[in-house]
Structure formats: structure tokens, C-alpha cells
């Protein structure tokens, strides 16, 4: 499996985890630091061989704490660096993600969600929507969060994660779930499609012929911290304006709009089509960026749709962002599975039938 992946115009049947790892290599990732956890261990396994073969950096870190901090270190030099992990172990990384946001470092984290809280189990889940989009680190910070729904998107959005991280000097999360990580689909590994971002004005390279640079988050004076936060949030606003991405189908005339990200969005899409066959006007909005969230678009659609339904594998997390966007204009309901595979198409259709009758 690991040997056969390189750049190819031919489609290859690839597991989500390998697709992410190979895409990272093709995106020019120079350093991988990681610690094993199911269901994403294939990423580290692939990287251990590939990075050494390419004479790039690889460390089997002693913990996720160490792994993410190694990424911060590598990123501070302008290198493209990443780690990958899952749920309870991404929890360990929250401190460093807050630092990375404050330090404005282009960290890339692949988070392949499993069930929590605590150790939970290795079944797929979307229970870390909040962990990724709100975060568990300290302070007012934001991570860019990208959510693939297919194995091909695992490739495309890994490329994009490296680019956006560099472009905005902001930690970026590729948020997949255990199902996508283990799923195989034919994918194409095209060339990394984004321009390289010049980091020569901030990267630590040794203070040759110039004063020393400091990458820091410590702001001893309150005024400094206010200015810094304003600047940081101006950047987040820019990201919202430029980078919000979603897929939208059949929403123009829709009475009910399903909102779903990641693997459940596949079933939501099929359910939408089934409902259309039954004459129920259902549309789908699939957020591809979770931060920035397509709030503005959802708010617009709330003027014409009669109801929104969030389809998630958790107890209802993204639904909060939908409600904020809808702002009370119409009801927002939830179709969910707490953990495991996404709600089945049949389940979603049945529920939509009920909701449309109300």
C-alpha cells in the first residue's frame, strides 16, 4: 500500500488515511511528528516510511503534546509541518494550538474523529466539531477547519489545508472521521495546485544580517494584548470573507434544507434525492469549511426555507452554528447518531417525511 502511492494521473483505490498522508507529502510537507491512535494510525505508518525515503523529517514523538509542539517548532522556521491524531489525543494538543494561533504559525493538524468523551471507542464520530471549531485552548483564537466528505476530498483538502495555513499563518485542521479514514475510494493525486507562500519576512532562519526575530505569544502589557487580538480577529474576518466554502444543491425552492458535513453529508445527499422523488422539496447545504462557517448563506436561505435539519454523528454540535445563522427565523431540527456510522438514508428520509408533515 505504502509503496504504490506517488503522484499519479491514474486513479488508485486508496484509504482516506493514506490519501491524506500521500497528499501531505505531495503538498511538500517537510516534517511529520506523530503518536499512534486509532483510527488514524495509517497516516503515521505511511509517513514513517515515506519521509525517511525522501530524506524529510519524521519523529515518533513521546506524546501528542510533544508531537504538536514539534510541529510548532518546525513551522517557526517556515517549514511545512504536520501531525495527525484523533479525539482524546487531539484534546492533549489544545494548549499548543492556542499557542500556534497566537504565534501565527502555519500548523497543519489532521484530526480523524473517533467516539468520546474520554477514551470512548474507535467508532466513527463527529463529536469533535466543537473541539475543532471552538477549541479547548485558552483565549480568543480560531483555527481554520476543513471537512472532507469523500476520499478524493481528503486529498484535495489536505492540499488546501497546507495552503491556507501558510497563506493566513494560521493553524489549520483537516477534520475527518473514522469512517473516512478507513474508507477506500478511487482517487487521483494531482499536483499540489497552490502557489508557494513567501515566508521570508517572518520565519526563523538565524538572524543573519538583521535583528533577531521573536515568535511569541507573551504580551506583558494589556494594551499590547488588545491590539494583538484586534489584529488577529481582523485576520479571521478576512478568512471568513475569502475562504468560506460549501456545496449547495436544490436549495432554491427547498422547504427543508439539510445541513451536513463529512461522511453523513453523503447520506443526506442521497436522502435529499429520495425525498425529491417523493415530491418533498428538500435541499442540501454541505459546509466544506467549518471555520469559516457558511453562516451568511444559511442566514439568506432562512428567508425562503421553512426548516433546517442538521445531520450529524454526535449529540448535535454543528446545529448550534446553524441556529446562530438562522437566528430564530425558522426551526432547526437534528437528525443524529451519537456515534458510529452516519444515520442511514432510510432513517433520514423517514424523519424528513415526518418533519414535512408538521
Amino acid at each position, binding site marked *: 500500500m505504502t509503496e504504490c502511492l506517488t503522484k499519479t494521473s491514474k486513479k488508485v483505490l486508496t484509504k482516506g488515511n493514506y490519501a491524506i498522508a500521500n497528499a501531505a507529502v505531495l503538498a511538500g510537507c517537510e516534517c511529520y511528528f506523530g503518536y499512534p491512535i486509532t483510527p488514524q494510525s495509517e497516516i503515521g505508518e505511511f509517513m514513517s516510511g515515506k519521509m525517511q525515503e525522501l530524506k524529510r523529517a519524521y519523529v515518533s514523538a513521546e506524546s501528542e503534546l510533544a508531537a504538536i509542539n514539534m510541529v510548532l517548532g518546525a513551522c517557526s522556521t517556515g517549514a511545512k509541518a504536520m501531525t495527525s491524531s484523533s479525539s482524546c489525543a487531539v484534546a492533549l494538543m489544545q494548549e499548543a494550538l492556542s499557542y500556534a494561533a497566537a504565534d501565527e504559525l502555519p500548523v497543519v493538524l489532521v484530526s480523524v474523529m473517533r467516539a468520546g468523551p474520554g477514551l470512548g471507542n474507535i*467508532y466513527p464520530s463527529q463529536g469533535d466539531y466543537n473541539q475543532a471549531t471552538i477549541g479547548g485552548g485558552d483565549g480568543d483564537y480560531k483555527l481554520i477547519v476543513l471537512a472532507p466528505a469523500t476520499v478524493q476530498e481528503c486529498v484535495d483538502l489536505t492540499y488546501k489545508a497546507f495552503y491556507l495555513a501558510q497563506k493566513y499563518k494560521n493553524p489549520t485542521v483537516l477534520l475527518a472521521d473514522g*469512517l473516512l479514514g478507513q474508507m477506500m475510494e478511487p482517487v487521483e493525486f494531482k499536483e499540489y495546485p497552490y502557489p508557494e507562500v513567501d515566508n521570508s519576512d517572518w520565519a526563523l532562519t538565524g538572524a543573519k544580517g538583521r535583528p533577531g526575530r521573536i515568535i511569541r505569544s507573551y504580551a506583558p502589557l494589556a494594551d499590547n494584548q488588545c491590539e494583538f487580538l484586534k489584529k488577529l480577529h481582523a485576520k479571521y474576518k478576512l478568512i471568513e470573507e475569502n475562504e468560506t466554502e460549501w456545496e449547495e444543491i436544490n436549495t432554491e425552492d427547498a422547504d427543508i434544507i439539510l445541513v451536513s458535513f463529512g461522511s453523513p453529508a453523503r447520506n443526506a445527499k442521497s436522502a435529499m434525492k429520495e425525498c425529491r422523488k417523493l415530491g418533498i422539496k428538500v435541499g442540501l447545504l454541505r459546509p466544506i469549511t467549518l471555520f469559516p462557517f457558511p453562516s451568511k448563506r444559511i442566514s439568506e436561505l432562512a428567508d425562503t426555507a421553512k426548516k433546517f435539519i442538521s445531520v450529524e454523528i454526535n449529540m448535535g454540535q454543528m446545529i448550534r452554528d446553524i441556529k446562530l445563522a438562522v437566528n430564530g427565523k425558522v426551526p432547526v431540527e437534528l437528525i443524529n447518531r451519537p456515534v458510529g456510522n*452516519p444515520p442511514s*438514508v432510510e432513517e433520514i428520509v423517514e424523519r424528513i417525511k415526518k418533519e414535512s408533515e408538521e
Partner: protein
Amino acid sequence: MEKNFIIAGFGGQGVLLAGEVLANAFMLDNKNVTWYPSYGAEMRGGTVNCEIVMNDSEDVSSVNKAETDFIVALNQASFDRFLPKVKKGGWMIANSSLVTEAKTRSDINYMFVPMTKLADDLGNTKMTNILSLGVLAKASGLTDPKLLENALDQVLPPHRKNLLPLNCKALKIGYEYDLSLARA
């Protein structure tokens, strides 16, 4: 057209590999295909299954299907577990070496093939999984031995390539098995 398949057995029977070969065969036939495994903490010995969804259209396939068009059950536990999941008019293809022949549902098609015995006759029990793909190809008409052979060539790692001829034989035995016997 969309068709889905579940291949199930106990750990070590090569269920996931068989699924991967089938998925590759569909890919080589320019179909959209999605493969995903069942989950379990077991490394060996537990029951294992994977689902393959094949799709003709441009659409992304849905997952976690309530019903299945074709189920390949390599052991009794899988047969019992997945029998209720066979779609009306769908197929239960069972390894009769390890599964008791019983037809408790009248709305589906059954096929009982002594796959393990046939693999043993070929000289390698481990060929059971690939042999089952031959049977599946014949029963479904959705793929053929040539595509499966090419898929095997892609899936087998370099250090297992020496087993390719034997695997191809197993495919052929499965494909050419007298289906009138299987339905009996």
C-alpha cells in the same frame, strides 16, 4: 445503478482483502466505488466484514446501507448476522463448508458453495476469499474474472505476487462452479 455488497467472515479469512479486490475491479471498470470495513477492536479471530458500494453515476455513494444486494458469508456467524440485511430479491452467497444450508427466507436468492473445501482441493485454504469472488462475479454478472485478476495484480503486495497464479485459479474455480449445484 447502485449495488452494494457485504463480504463477511472471521478474522484471518481475508475478508477485507477480498473486498479490496472487488472494489479495485469496479474501479478498473470505471465505476464509482466505496469500500469500508466494519469496526472491531479484534486484530484476529473476531467477525469481520466490509461493505462495497458500486455506482454507475457521478454521484457520491451513501454509506451504512439498511439493505444489501449481495452478501458473501464465509462463516456461520456472518450468515446468521447478515441474512436479515439481504435486500428483497437480493443474494445470499454462503460458504457451505462452514455454513449450514437453510433457506429461511423465500424472498431472496441463495447460493451455497463449499468454498473452503474447493480451496483445500486447490491446495490452499487461504484461497477461500478469492474463490468466493469468482462465485460472486458469476452470480451478479457485475464484474468478471479478467477484471478481478487485474485487480488482484494491483492489490497483492510485491512479496505476495508469487501467489497471483494460485489466486487466479481460485477465481476461475469459483466462477466456473456449477451454479445449479449451488442453488440446490
